[in-house]
């Protein structure tokens, strides 16, 4: 052949490499990230999805790093799991790495964390979104495991009430990544909040995508398929929904994007304050049903550093572990009346006069 195409390929690869180099920016200052001298090594094992999942893995990791920021004597690292068969090796490897504190993220891992913890009673462990349990999910007593859970139904309840109060069309929608408790608890709470608004204010706001009684609804069956999430959201919008509440980690950005393309449609984000994690879309995000994972993990690491072992933590509205995020750009759009009602509702949930319940609510509290 007259052309020497492999040279072109090589050139192309080289070009890609160059792009990569320039893309990654200037060389950083040296030595800044070297603190191998730290005496306390906190390790985290992620669930599938990885540390950058824009969801609980990422929030937990942020908490770890926040702890390191606060206490330079703490060193942090993570190991990603591809699926549940990676939990054990990752936990074991963390033990072998002589970690001083091991955080397992995700309720699926609870059994694995517990069994490894019971084999290594000298190491403190923590489990996010779960309680110490045996392989079959029955709670067991593990004194060296700290459990971190959140009653996100409470914050989602407020979000549902807010959505019902703000909707113009009388239709709002929610959808999930997978039908698993950390997802459906938000949807349950959201549905509860809407129902409460309807009963209190005599409105007839319709919720698409989740039937709390039947525990059935719309799921993307993926946390990664952002394009699918966008498309699904557009379908909801075409059915009249003007507020969407995606509970699907990164795939949820598809929903926010869809909402951003329609003036009248807003989104409510989950887990973290969407205005902070997705700053480009702040003008679309009405609020967020927050779950204070980052803080809780940070606190757990710092506590472990201080020698605290075991115990449990359930984030609620009361302790600030879950909350409704600020309205940011919608500060003016939300009426003072609604704001007051939300405050009252929050108080009512805290004192128990209004129940924000879900079959997926944390059991041990």
């Amino acid at each position, binding site marked *: 052949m007259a052309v020497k195409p492999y040279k072109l390929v090589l050139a192309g690869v080289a070009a890609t490499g160059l792009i990569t180099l320039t893309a990654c920016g200037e060389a950083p200052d040296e030595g800044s990230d070297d603190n191998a001298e730290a005496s306390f090594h906190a390790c985290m094992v992620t669930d599938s999805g990885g540390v950058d999942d824009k969801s609980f893995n990422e929030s937990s990791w942020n908490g770890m790093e926040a702890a390191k920021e606060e206490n330079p004597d703490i060193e942090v690292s993570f190991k990603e799991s591809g699926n549940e068969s990676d939990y054990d090796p990752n936990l*074991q490897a963390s033990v072998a790495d002589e970690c001083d504190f091991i955080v397992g993220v995700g309720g*699926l891992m609870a059994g694995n964390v517990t069994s490894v913890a019971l*084999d290594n009673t000298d190491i403190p462990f923590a489990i996010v979104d779960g309680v110490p*349990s045996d392989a*079959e999910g029955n709670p067991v007593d593990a004194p060296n495991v700290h459990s971190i859970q959140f009653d996100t139904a409470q914050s989602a309840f407020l979000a549902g009430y807010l959505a019902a109060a703000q909707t113009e069309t009388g239709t709002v929608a929610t959808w999930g990544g*997978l039908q698993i408790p950390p997802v459906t608890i938000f949807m349950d709470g959201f549905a509860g909040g809407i129902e409460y608004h309807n009963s209190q204010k005599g409105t007839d706001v319709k919720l698409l995508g989740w039937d709390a009684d039947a525990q059935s609804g719309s799921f993307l069956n993926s946390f990664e398929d952002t394009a699918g999430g966008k498309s699904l959201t557009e379908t909801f919008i075409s059915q009249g929904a003007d507020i969407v509440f995606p509970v699907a980690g990164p795939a949820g950005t598809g929903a926010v994007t869809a909402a951003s393309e329609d003036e009248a449609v807003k989104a409510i984000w989950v887990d973290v304050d969407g205005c902070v994690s997705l700053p480009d879309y702040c003008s679309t995000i009405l609020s967020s049903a927050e779950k204070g994972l980052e803080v809780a993990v940070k606190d757990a690491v710092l506590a472990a550093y201080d020698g605290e072992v075991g115990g449990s933590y359930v984030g609620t509205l009361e302790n600030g572990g879950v909350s409704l995020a600020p309205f940011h750009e919608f500060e003016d759009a939300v009426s003072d009346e609604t704001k007051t009602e939300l405050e009252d509702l929050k108080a009512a949930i805290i004192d128990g006069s209004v129940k924000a319940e879900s079959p*997926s609510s944390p059991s041990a509290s």
Partner: protein
Amino acid sequence: MTVTTETEAPTPEQPEAGEQPEKRPPFMVLFGRYLTEANSVMVTIYSLLLAFLLGAVLLIVSDEHVRGTWSYFFSRPTDALEASWEVVSNAYVSLFEGAILNFHTLDRMAAGNADVGDLLRPISETLTYTTPLIFTGLAVGLAFRAGLFNIGAQGQLVFGMLGALIVGFGLDLPAIVHIPLAVVAGAVAGAAFGSVPGVLKATTGAHEVISSIMLNNIAALFLVWAIGTGFLHSATRSELVTKPVDDSAIMPGILAPIDDDLRVNYSLVIGAAAAVFVWWLLSKSTFGYRIRAVGFNQHASATAGMSIGRTYVTTMGAAGALAGLAGAALALGVGSGGITTNTALEYGFDGITVALLGRANPGGIVAAALLFGALKAGALSAQPDVPVDMSTLLQATIVLFIAAPALVKALLRLRAPRGGLVTLEAKGW
């Protein structure tokens, strides 16, 4: 598609085959010649080396610190070279330690902090990840030999997993019966699902690649639905996870007598047996004879009275059974605590690369599965020194070079081997 030794059409650039050496050259000369020749052994070795070289480049490029040192390479090159060497050697040593032998464990053993179980853990992990790959590699490889591209091992694996799971928790039997029954259930379920593309191809001519891809997606969605049903869903856990299999159906660990935590179990033995069986099937049995005949030349096979359609169906069924065994290995092994939508990972697709790397030979497939299992186990434990995706990249590049011996030959300017390059022959749809 078939896997075969294809003798390249002789071209003028090749040395004349006519020059027969009169005297046998000394051993070292012969050996040196062997090393610089693009025979299949050397191509494999060079492919591995090239892939790891490429991986090293990526590691260097992606490490901010090292990249920084390269920016002043010309003023003080030692920094860059040292830093690069450190990153690359750390990464590969970590991979090795995670996959085969952890030197730190040796230190800890010396200090009395670790036992033999800890020392064996990397190997055990490697073998654990190897097990399903042997099955799916065989599933793809066997079909290759019949000229079928079984891209559907993933779906077959999913159904095998479900089959083994249902028998695993649904029946109450002593382990001696329960385990074999669950394994067989996995194989049967995989075979049933696997034969569908075969039937479609035999009856309607639908291409197995397309139907397998569709069936993979269908199987994945079916799994999501199935796990959520009351029949399968765990009674005690709220996550999307199935019931665990009964203790009597859990595949016992091979190294469990040494340490309970060593996960490698007797599925590995079944895998090795399956590889031997497939080898026997292909080289000794009439069924294997038919598979190979159809794979090489279906027209001549049909003329000789073989039923092409039936061969497609049975081969796909057999391949499905093998992939189903992978599912059973997962369901009764690492997934015995309950299956999630994620348990099957990409083992079925990885089987394709394993089969390619193993050149659709049972022995080669086992070796390839071991390599990939080691890469996976190593990558897992080498975190965060090595990004997990590095193992995917390494796998892809290794297979790329293996599949294109001519590329390796050209890159390294190797000489053509006597019998021609061993390559994968291409056929159309």
